[in-house]
């Protein structure tokens, strides 16, 4: 896919975002910007609207007002261009029925403008190596941890500029968490903006990621964007 990115634009900019379900307002006039190479940790308790915000950012939830731009492309006015830059990891990982893990990987490779060789190159990597023998099996039969490894691997294909990760460390073993953290750090080093949701920014895998970035001398420093349940709810 040919995309026209606004190179000066931040990977993600959310302006005056509003979302309500019935009479219940979840997000109201929310502004958020994720700069190049910046890690923003979206924190907040259950019901604070983290998943709703990530849904609006990824285009899976239609906001009632406001604007979402990915690399300067309006998500609703230019849906394909904006999504070409987006790499979204949902919290609940479904797999398509009838497709093997490898076929799902190749599907993303084609979609993100990567070659099948790029997809195959991921197989011996730290994410997929432990489940390599299962890649030819139906993806719907995978355990939650395997699903997450596969889903994260699909995010590495092509030239993604914005990683939106909903609880990326939940449900995976310690090695898997370390592998995911490593790839997030590498994406940041390439200049990707990362929006990562976590119930608690102090939880071990997130803290480890922040520590690794600090050890690398990564700039800008990670930032916590806290959402609280609205007082009027």
């Amino acid at each position, binding site marked *: 896919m040919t995309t026209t990115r606004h190179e000066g634009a931040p990977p993600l900019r959310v302006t005056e975002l509003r979302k309500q379900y019935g009479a219940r307002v979840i997000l109201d006039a929310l502004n958020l910007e994720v700069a190049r190479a910046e890690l923003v940790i979206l924190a907040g308790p259950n019901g604070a609207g983290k998943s709703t915000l990530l849904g609006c950012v990824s285009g899976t939830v239609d906001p009632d007002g406001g604007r979402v731009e990915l690399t300067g492309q309006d998500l609703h006015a230019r849906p394909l261009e904006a999504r070409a830059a987006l790499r979204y990891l949902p919290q609940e990982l479904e797999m398509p029925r009838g497709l093997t893990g490898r076929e799902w990987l190749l599907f993303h490779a084609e979609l*993100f403008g990567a070659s099948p060789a790029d997809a195959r190159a991921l197989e011996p990597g730290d994410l997929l190596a432990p489940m390599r023998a299962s890649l030819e099996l*139906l993806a719907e039969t995978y355990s939650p941890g395997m699903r997450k490894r596969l889903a994260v691997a699909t995010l590495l294909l092509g030239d993604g500029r914005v990683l939106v990760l909903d609880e990326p460390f939940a449900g995976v073993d310690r090695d898997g968490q370390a592998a995911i953290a490593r790839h997030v750090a590498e994406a940041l080093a390439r200049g990707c903006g990362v929006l990562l949701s976590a119930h608690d920014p102090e939880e071990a895998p997130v803290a480890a990621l922040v520590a690794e970035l600090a050890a690398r001398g990564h700039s800008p420093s990670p930032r916590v964007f806290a959402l609280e349940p609205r007082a009027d709810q």
Partner: protein
Amino acid sequence: MLPRWERSPGAGWLLPALIAVAWAATLAGAADEPLLAQRGVVFVGGPLLLLAGLHARLADYLHAGARARLLPLPVPAREHWRAAQGLHRRGLLVTGALGVLAIGLAVASSGAQPQRFLWLVGDFVWFLLCAALLESGIPGAAAWGGRRFPAGHWAHELQRQLGGGWTTPEAVVHLYAPAFGLGLAALLAMPGQLSFARLASGAALGPVHLGLTLGPLALALVVRVVAPRLYADGLWRAVPRLQEAIRTLAGPPKPAPAPAWSALLGRLGGPHTRLAALQLARLGGPAPGLRLAALLLYTAYLALAPVPPDLLSCGLAVILAAAWIAAGLRQRQERARNRRLLAHLPLPAPARAGRAPLLDALIFAPPALTAVALTLRWTLAP
């Protein structure tokens, strides 16, 4: 009513409909034979017809994923039973209607007397009644016998011997109970059908005949009453064992290689079309390619045949079209999930909504072609 998850479009009526068409053709072929010969066809065809949709009718009792998912919840066994009965009853109703329709079509196309229709339907409905009562016994027996019994228990030994070592012992009952249940239904219906034959020949029924007719029916009734109790006893342990057996029988979930036509469609319609085509190939039920080929070949035959198609030919065309469309509908069931999976990806709007317009066109074009061929043949008939 408890929620249900999986549904295979057409599973409950498609195969029975195909058998019904074949049955009607066989009955029509024997139209010149005496009533006795046609009764023989009904005696054989009835159980075949019910056997065709048996698994689909009974699937909700033990096999459905809903049973396994709801098992951790404090849902009484009678609620599970009730939830499964809806599908079972509908299936029986549809199958019975198909059977009566098949007999009616055969008799009407041969121009036989309505009385012959009534005798043949009487035979079939009597068997259907016995089967309806006994079929409930199949999940009852399967739940009771699908558990693990202690070593040395007679049921454990029976499971081991009948399993032959190629499936789990607890799954053995699921292999034998359905065929045994319908076989028993045919056996119990036989005295009643012989009584009908006696009446058809003009002879009267004595007390012995009546006893032999109604006795088996009473036995079937007992099975119907006992079945829910057996089911309630066995449900909680039989369902996990069945799930385990399904996994063991299915082996590693390695699918068939992607067919070449899915790659071709992918080149024409994009990656989401290939994804949908793969789902059609792998989820659309057995042999979707064969179904399409059968429909297209039969359409060609109807278009080129020297005489315009009769009612039976049209019925077969409709069934073949339904068989093909059912495969497509199974893929369309994945739309909601595909929509969730694809919504955030850089795909055209229809694809993000889970649709694959090119594949949809391919699914509906062949039946449309068949309809056009039939219409033209009738319109242009002299």
